[in-house]
C-alpha cells in the first residue's frame, strides 16, 4: 500500500493534486477495486462516458481514458488517494485490467513501451513506487517511452513553446504590476499571491521559474532588508522573462542557459548522448536543500585535469533516497555529460574505477575566488549558487563571521554545527574550504585537510529522506 506522500510525489504538478481532491468522493466513482497489483475504477466526468482509470501500483503505470495530456491525470491521482485511505475494496481484477497488466508485464520484459493504448493514455512509468529525482525534474518518464511520431512531436514542441512564451509575457506583466504598486503592497505578504503565479508558470511549462517564485515568496519579511533581496530577484525574473522571449536571437549557449533556467526540460537520455567530459573528478562538496516537497542534493565536482567545475544533482521525495555514490573528499575517474549551455550541471556516465581517497580540489585566495564566481555570474547572472575552493581564515566582522585572507573577505552565512566545525578546525589559522557563493553570503561546505576532508554542508533531514 502506498502512502499519501507517495501519491503526492507522482503528481505532475501541485495543481494536478488540487484538481484531484474534489474527485476523492465515492459518489463520483463506480466499479472501484484493487488487488495486489492494480487499482481500477470508472470516474464520472464531464464526458458522456465515464473515464476508465487503472493504475499498476507495483510496476507504477497509469491508464485513463480521459483526454488530459497530463500523466498521471487527476482521475488517477484521485483514485490513488481513495485507495491509500482504504476506500477501495479488494476484489478480483476485471478482464480489461488483467489484460492491461499482462500487456505491461510483457512490455516490461521487452523494456519497450506499452503500445496497446493511444499516446494520450500511455503509461507514465516511473521507477519503483516513487519517482526518482530525475523523473521529477528531467522528464525521465518521457525518456523511457517511445517517442511519438515526428509531426506530433513538432506540434507538441510548438505548443509548448507557445505556452512558455505566453507564461513569460504574463510573468513580465505581473512584475510590472509589482513595480507599480510597490513592495509595501500587503498582497505580497500573502503566499497565495505568489503561489497563483507559480501555478500559472507551471501550466506554462516554466517549472523552474515557478520554483524560483515559490522561493522568492519565502524571502518576504524574512530579514530586515528583505525588500532589497526581493527586488533583486524580481529584476532577475524580468531578465529571464525578457531573454526567454528572445531565445531565437540569443547566442546558442546563452539561449540554452536561458531555456533550461526558465524550465525547458532536457531528457537525461539526450544529455547522456552528448560527448563525455572525461576526467578525474574530485568530489569537492555536497549540500542538501529542501525545495517544496523535494530534497535536492548538490554534488560539486572539479576536474583534476581541466579544472572545470560540474554540478551533479539528485532529488528525493518523502522516504526516497538521495545519491550516496559520490563521497566528499574522494576522486573518481568518470565520464561526465554536461547539460546544454554554460551552466555546470552534468550527469555522471561511465565510471572508470573505484574512488580514490583522499582527494582535494586546488584552492585559490579570496580575490581569485571572487574572480571565478564573477566569470560565471557574468555569463548567467541568475545563478544563485556557485562553487569555489579558497584558502582562508575565519574572522569576525561585527556580528557576522567571514572568510578572510590578506586580499579580502567574504561574509559567511553558516551557523550551528557547520560554523562551529569550521571555527574549531581552522582555529586562528587558514584552511582550504570549498564553499557555495550565494547572493546572501558564502556557505562553507567542506574543509579539506591533508589526509581527509570534513563534510560540513547542510544535510537533509533523515526523517524525510534517506541521506546518509
Amino acid at each position, binding site marked *: 500500500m502506498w502512502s499519501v506522500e507517495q501519491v503526492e510525489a507522482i503528481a505532475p504538478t501541485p495543481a494536478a493534486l488540487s484538481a484531484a481532491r474534489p474527485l476523492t468522493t465515492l459518489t463520483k466513482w463506480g466499479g472501484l477495486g484493487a488487488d495486489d497489483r492494480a487499482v481500477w475504477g470508472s470516474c464520472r466526468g464531464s464526458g458522456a462516458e465515464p473515464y476508465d482509470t487503472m493504475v499498476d501500483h507495483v510496476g507504477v503505470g497509469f491508464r485513463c481514458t480521459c483526454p488530459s495530456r497530463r500523466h498521471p491525470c487527476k482521475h488517477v491521482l484521485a483514485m490513488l488517494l481513495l485507495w491509500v485511505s482504504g476506500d477501495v475494496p479488494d476484489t478480483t481484477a476485471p478482464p480489461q485490467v488483467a489484460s492491461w497488466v499482462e500487456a505491461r508485464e510483457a512490455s516490461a520484459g521487452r523494456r519497450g513501451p506499452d503500445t496497446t493504448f493511444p499516446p494520450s493514455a500511455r503509461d507514465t512509468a516511473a521507477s519503483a513506487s516513487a519517482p526518482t529525482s530525475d523523473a521529477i525534474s528531467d522528464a525521465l518518464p518521457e525518456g523511457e517511452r517511445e517517442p511519438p511520431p515526428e509531426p506530433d512531436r513538432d506540434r507538441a514542441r510548438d505548443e509548448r513553446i507557445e505556452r512558455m512564451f505566453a507564461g513569460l509575457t504574463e510573468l513580465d506583466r505581473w512584475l510590472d504590476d509589482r513595480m507599480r504598486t510597490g513592495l509595501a503592497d500587503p498582497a505580497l505578504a500573502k503566499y497565495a499571491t505568489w503561489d497563483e503565479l507559480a501555478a500559472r508558470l507551471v501550466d506554462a511549462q516554466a517549472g523552474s521559474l515557478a520554483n524560483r517564485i515559490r522561493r522568492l515568496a519565502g524571502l518576504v519579511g524574512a530579514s530586515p532588508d528583505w525588500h532589497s533581496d526581493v527586488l533583486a530577484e524580481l529584476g532577475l525574473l524580468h531578465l529571464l522573462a525578457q531573454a526567454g522571449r528572445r531565445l531565437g536571437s540569443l547566442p546558442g549557449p546563452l539561449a540554452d542557459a536561458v531555456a533550461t533556467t526558465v524550465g525547458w526540460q532536457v531528457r537525461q537520455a539526450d544529455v547522456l548522448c552528448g560527448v563525455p567530459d572525461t576526467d578525474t573528478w574530485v568530489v569537492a562538496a555536497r549540500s542538501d536543500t529542501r525545495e517544496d516537497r523535494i530534497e535536492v542534493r548538490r554534488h560539486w565536482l572539479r576536474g583534476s585535469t581541466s579544472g572545470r567545475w560540474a554540478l551533479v544533482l539528485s532529488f528525493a521525495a518523502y522516504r526516497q533516497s538521495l545519491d550516496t555514490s559520490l563521497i566528499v573528499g574522494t576522486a573518481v575517474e568518470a565520464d561526465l555529460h554536461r547539460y546544454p549551455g554554460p551552466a555546470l550541471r552534468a550527469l555522471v556516465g561511465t565510471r572508470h574505477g573505484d574512488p580514490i581517497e583522499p582527494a582535494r580540489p586546488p584552492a585559490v585566495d579570496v580575490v581569485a575566488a571572487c574572480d571565478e564566481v564573477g566569470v560565471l555570474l557574468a555569463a548567467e547572472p541568475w545563478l544563485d549558487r556557485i562553487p569555489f575552493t579558497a584558502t582562508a581564515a575565519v574572522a569576525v566582522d561585527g556580528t557576522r563571521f567571514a572568510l578572510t585572507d590578506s586580499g579580502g573577505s567574504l*561574509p559567511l552565512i553558516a551557523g550551528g554545527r557547520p560554523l*562551529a566545525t569550521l571555527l574549531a578546525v581552522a582555529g586562528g589559522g587558514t584552511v582550504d574550504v570549498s564553499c557555495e557563493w550565494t547572493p546572501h553570503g558564502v556557505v562553507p561546505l567542506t574543509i579539506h585537510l591533508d589526509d581527509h576532508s570534513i563534510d560540513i554542508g547542510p544535510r537533509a533531514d533523515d526523517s524525510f529522506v534517506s541521506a546518509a
Partner: protein
Amino acid sequence: MRRVTRTSTQTWGWGGVTQVEQWRELVSVAMLGTDRRNPPEPDGLIADLVDDTVRSTPSERMLAQVAATVAVRRAGVLPGAPLSPVDGPGTDDRPVCVPAAAERWHHIVSSWPVLEDEWMLSLVMNGWRVPPDLVPELLTRHRTDPIRRARAELACGPLAGWLVGHLPELGARGAAGAQPDPSADDIAELPPLPIPPDLEPLLHADGDVVARQLARAIDAGMLVHAHRAVLVNLIARMRPDAPGQVASALEAIDGGSPGFPLASVLADLGRTRQRMLDELSVS
C-alpha cells in the same frame, strides 16, 4: 541590451559606495511603487545598458534598471576589505587520538551509548585529545550533565573554552552551567550500572571464564533477549581484558541457535569495547 562600452570608474561590488547608494534609491522607489514615485535616472554603466530600449512607462523603466543593476552587481562581485583572523585557542600539547577512535565514538553514540563515559575517560586519562572537528559535537551533546560536561571539556582542551567564547550557544546549560565544577574523583569514576547479584561474580572473572559461561547460557536459551539490558551492562563494565574474548565466544555461536541474534548483538558490543580500549591505550 547592448554591450557596455564605457569603463566604469565607480566601485562595483560589496562595499562600493556609489553602487550601494544607487541600489538603495531603487529599493526606496520599489517599496513605494512607481505609481507614487518615478524611478531614478539611470547613471553610468546602467544607463549604457538600458538607454537603447524603448520603455514607455515608469514601471517598465524601473524593471529594466533593476535587472541591469542586479546583473552588473553580481558580475562585479568583489571581496570585502581584509579582516583580522580570529586569535587561535591556547596550545594543547596532547596528541590527537587516532582517526579510528573518533570514528568509534560515532559508532558508540549511535549504537552503544553505555560505552561513551568510558571512551571519554580513557581518552582523557591516557593523554589524548579529540580532533577539532569533534569538539562542537561533544560540546553540543554534553551541555547539561556536569560530570560529562567536565569530561568533554577536558577531552577538548583549550579549544572548548575558546569555541564557546565565539559561539555561546555551545556553552553549558542547566546543572552543568549552574553547579560548581565537579571534583577530579567524580570525573574519574564511571557511573555504576545495575547488574543482578548472580551476574556480579562475572564482573571480575577471567575473560575466558566469562566468555565460556555467557556463550553456553545464551546458546542454551538460559539467557534470552529479556536479559539483554543487564548483559549489556555486564559487558560494558567487565574487566578490560575480557570483552575481546567474550566477543569471540559469542561470534562462534551457530547461526541456527535460538540465541544467535542476541549473541551477535552482544558480540558487537564486546568487540566495540575491546577496539575502543585498544585505540585509546596509553599514547
